[in-house]
């Protein structure tokens, strides 16, 4: 349990610091690399939450595909490499005020609802039970039974995104 708390503390700190760097750094490539830190830490948090399938997909899709796509975007759009003062607009203080207000509201309602609840303990739960309830197999079963319709819809969505993006991005 102590090990879990320490791991959570380290990962949470890494996540939030890297996330803040994503929105404050003046360098587009650095922002993408900080995003990798955020995504990987969130993936590790999923393992702490016993969601191994989601953790694996997080690394494969987010870190492996989406960030690479964004870096390709940096290349294709010839964005300025290195320092760029043009990255922010003039609303930094207004934005900060709104963000703090939002964070305050969210923290208030979350603490109000769940303040002193604990995560259900997993002591005494056998590995087999855990896997049956929360493993990749259980996720697969849920996707192909309860969530069959969204699954099929998402496949059409990916096809549409693929075709449309090629038309928009190609030279003609």
């Amino acid at each position, binding site marked *: 349990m102590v090990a879990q708390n320490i791991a959570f503390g380290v990962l949470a700190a890494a996540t939030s610091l890297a996330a803040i760097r994503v929105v404050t750094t003046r360098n587009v490539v650095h922002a993408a690399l900080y995003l990798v830190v955020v995504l990987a830490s969130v993936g590790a948090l999923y393992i702490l939450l016993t969601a191994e399938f989601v953790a694996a997909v997080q690394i494969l899709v987010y870190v492996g595909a989406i960030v690479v796509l964004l870096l390709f975007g940096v290349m294709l759009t010839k964005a300025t490499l290195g320092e760029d003062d043009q990255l922010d607009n003039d609303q930094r203080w207004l934005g900060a005020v709104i963000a703090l207000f939002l964070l305050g509201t969210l923290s208030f309602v979350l603490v109000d609802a769940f303040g002193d609840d604990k995560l259900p303990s997993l002591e005494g739960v056998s590995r087999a039970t855990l896997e*049956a309830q929360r493993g990749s197999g259980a996720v697969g079963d849920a996707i192909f039974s*309860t969530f069959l319709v969204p699954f099929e819809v998402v496949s059409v969505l990916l096809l549409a995104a693929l*075709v449309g993006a090629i038309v928009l991005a190609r030279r003609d």
Partner: protein
Amino acid sequence: MDVLSGPVAGVFRAPDVDYHAFAPELVLVAVLVAVLVVDLVLEGRGRRLVGGLAGIGLLAAMVPVLTLAVDGANRSMVGGAYVVDDFALVFKGLFLIAGYVTMLLSSDYLADDDYYEGEYYFLLLSSVLGMMVMASSRDLISIFVALELLSIPAYMLAGWRKRDLKGNEATLKYYLLGVFATGVMLYGMSLIFGITGETVLTEIGSKLQGPGASLPLVSLGIVFVIVGFAFKISAVPFHSWAPDTYEGAPTPITAFLSVASKAGGFVALMQLVFIGFLGRDDVWQPMFWVLAALTMTVGNLIALRQTNIVRMLAYSSVAQAGYMLLPFAVAGDLAKGPGAAMGPMTTYLLIYAAMNLGAFALVLAVARKTRSGEIASYGGLFEYAPGLTVLMSIFVFALAGIPPLGGWYGKLVVFKTLLDANTPWAIVLGVIAAVNSVIALYYYASVAREMWMRPVPDGDTTPVRVPAGLTAALSLCAVATVVIGVYPQVVARFGDLAVFSLLP
């Protein structure tokens, strides 16, 4: 972990699939794949064929909608997450017809300016498919996925005029705001899931009647979800993408966004509010009150100042969304229960679809000659295109709500809902709406004045050539607008049908 050799995760039970209930969607999927393949094989030589195939496909998908309607049974699948009832069927019919009219508007527009055609039809069909799924989705995840399927092709279609810088930037704005709204909506959904532990709306509905439903967390979740959809229906203050996108997108897509995409947002809102969040009308009712009042007023006041017809119609459609939000704002106070607010909203949406599609079809027809979107270019339209002038007058006066054209009946049922609620807040809202209807009359009438009374700006009075597809779309919308105005029972019947059978 090796799924195949690992411990068996419970026994997998394949869900029962009712193929009749899924038939409209399945036909549409088959057609959109066919469109893609035919376009690929013909390499752009069979443009007419691809367009025709897509149009026939939309009409073919109408057949199972009708057989399901005749059958009449409510079909609920995968634990209530996907429901085919009269509500869903009415809107599926609307989406298919709106998609077909968009198709009619598009064919000559695309050919004239040499845009990509096969992919355009493919994306349009995908977006219609998303709307069809939305009409039946009764759980948070299906609603989210359907929303994305209807929006993502729409983002790309809005940017189809790749050579137009203004259009490109409008698309980027539409995309960024849309994706941001999705994020906000999803966060709201996650909070609601956390409190109720459910994703199916009926379950959420019963959980939110019970203890724990009054937590501020629930209120915040509901607010976030509604804000997410307020972008989709372009309610003020979340409307800023609409005028720019409407102006920058190809005009047929503008018509599609202002009617079908907006209706998709309303369908989702009705499902969420009247099934899922029914017990928390203390949260959504004031919120919709403010949204409706702002949307009507701001939309109309800015529409007054527009000199471009597309921007004027954009702000007018923002204002129209305000009228459609009115029943939400009083739903909790109705004597017959909140469900009584659904009929008027559906009725208004159906009528609005006919008249707004018609107005945009006419803008397309006139722009073929004048190549301009300025209201001033409509000067003296009566001298060289009397038919089009009469049609445009029908559409703008219908939008203004003048009897005996379609729009008046929509306004009537909406105002009647406000009177039924009979609370001070409802009356105040009714007064705001009435004042707005008068303001709106001014800018609608100014278009008519331009057409009937002003001289032709450049003296060019060669007649406007209207291609067959456009003529068909115009006649369809005009007939619908006039018939609904004279025999409102037709549309009122659909409004009565489109009420959930699941209301507690």
